[in-house]
């Protein structure tokens, strides 16, 4: 207990800063991932032939060791937050892209035919039928991505991006297990918290299919 108090006294402000950095790196990467992967995923459902190839390429990127990717961006983007965010962004793509593609693709064909037959445009179909119905699947992809990214963001410390990884690597270098825990525990809590909040967001965004005043037997 004493060591804990002592740790907070010595490192409290650093911890807050590192946690903030960590969150910031991961969230920017996920946001970029959403901004790119969701539209691309929707686009892929419209050009079927390309879909398989694109998803395969993104899957392959996913298998690259994360350290290698981080290192790879150093000559191009230098060190600091930018290369870390870019690398993490690449990782966030796959789950979101794949889930968006599958979610949209799985829309009941009859709904599309009914919609099209009644004179809905392609855009109207996407925004008022396909996207709302695919929300749970797309959100699942975003949640998986976010949780992974918060974990992987510890590696960002390698390219000088800061974050909770700094504690972990300092701990490894100085043989101080408490420093490792000081990095690992907040990062885990962040991941759980993010997942919880995104779960709430998912509930909020998922369209209702039941009226509240009426219970089905």
């Amino acid at each position, binding site marked *: 207990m004493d060591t804990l108090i002592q740790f907070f006294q010595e490192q409290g402000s650093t911890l807050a800063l590192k946690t903030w950095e960590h969150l910031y790196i991961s969230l920017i990467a996920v946001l970029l991932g959403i901004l790119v992967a969701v539209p691309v995923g929707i686009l892929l459902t419209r050009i079927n032939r390309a879909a398989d190839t694109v998803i395969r390429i993104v899957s392959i990127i996913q298998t690259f060791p994360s350290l290698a990717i981080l290192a790879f961006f150093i000559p191009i983007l230098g060190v600091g937050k930018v290369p870390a965010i870019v690398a993490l962004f690449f990782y966030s793509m796959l789950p979101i892209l794949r889930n968006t593609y599958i979610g949209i693709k799985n829309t009941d064909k009859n*709904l599309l035919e009914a919609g099209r037959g009644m004179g809905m445009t392609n855009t109207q179909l996407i925004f008022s039928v396909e996207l709302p*119905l695919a929300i749970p699947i797309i959100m699942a992809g975003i949640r998986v991505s976010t949780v992974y990214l918060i974990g992987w963001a510890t590696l960002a410390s390698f390219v000088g991006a800061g974050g909770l990884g700094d504690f972990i690597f300092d701990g490894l270098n100085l043989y101080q297990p408490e420093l490792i825990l000081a990095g690992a525990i907040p990062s885990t809590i962040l991941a759980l918290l993010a997942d919880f909040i995104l779960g709430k967001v998912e509930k909020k965004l998922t369209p209702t*299919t039941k009226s509240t005043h009426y219970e089905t037997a």
Partner: protein
Amino acid sequence: MLTFENVTKIYSGSKKAVNNLNLQIEKGEFICFIGPSGCGKTTSMKMVNRLIEPSEGRILIDGKDIMKQNRVQMRREIGYVIQQIGLFPHMTISENITLVPKLLQWSKEKRRERAVELIKLVNLPEEYLDRYPQELSGGQQQRIGVLRALASNPPLILMDEPFGALDPITRDGLQEEFKDLQKRLGKTIVFVTHDMDEAIKLADRIVIMKDGEIVQVDTPDEILRNPANEFVESFIGKERLIQTKPDVTTVGQIMNKIPATVHKEETLSTAIQRMKEKRVDSLLVIGDDQTLEGYIDVEDIEENRKKSTLVGEIYETELYKVKEDSLIRDTIQKMLRRHTKYVPVVDDQNKLKGIVTRATLADLVYDSIWGDEDDN
């Protein structure tokens, strides 16, 4: 209203799904396309709203070539109902019904007004407007599917086996309801089905197709009487050809005009007395002016004789009835399907005119077997 001119559809490859189709459909006509699967009936229908585009030939709506119009705009002016219903699960019934009006940018109030007006057409309660599709039964859902097609009041409605996925009794009811609605609203309907009974019942003219070509176009009666060739004959089925005779007779011609009835103000003992006199186990309950209210049977009386005294307190109102001008064939089918012993016959004001019982059917069968001999 709707014209097909030498319309051909060739899918990738060389097979002609529809081959040189020529057809003129008048305003207010109910046209059924029928044929075995792969005969091109659905393709023909979907070419009208360009879900499938014709390879050759022209389709004209009110003299205007559909290929020269904006596809999306044109579809909003044509009602469309599919077999799988296709209601959007995340929209309320009201939102589903008024989808096309919304696309046409009607105001919110006007849309709601229209939804209320429409749901009354199919006798569903107004509260249903705020429910979601999954909270309705299949039959109710398809009623909404039909309303959705009617929402912006399009003159032409395309229907792709709309009642195909429903159970026979629900289907029966909906067919009747819909035919009624169509007559009232004067819509032109292009209806695809593979069910000959349905086509005979609903259509003003039936288009029989095979291998992408029209085999025969005629009224149901004409097709039953003079099938164009063996294919049509086999498609109609021998059974129906034999039944053609009763087809043209209406219920009014054969019903028993003096059914056993009891007024709802009369007592239970009068009712049981009358059953005994007439040797029947149930009586039709009538109100003033001969209006049909329901029925009462001997079990109802037995169960309630200690508690109630008047017929009006215990009679049952759930009753299947037909109009005088219903076809005998339909009525027979329904009696058999529902296992009812009798069907009361009423006029447009719901006044009791007579009754068709299983005994009436026996007379009919007797006539059709020995009737000709009697004439000699």
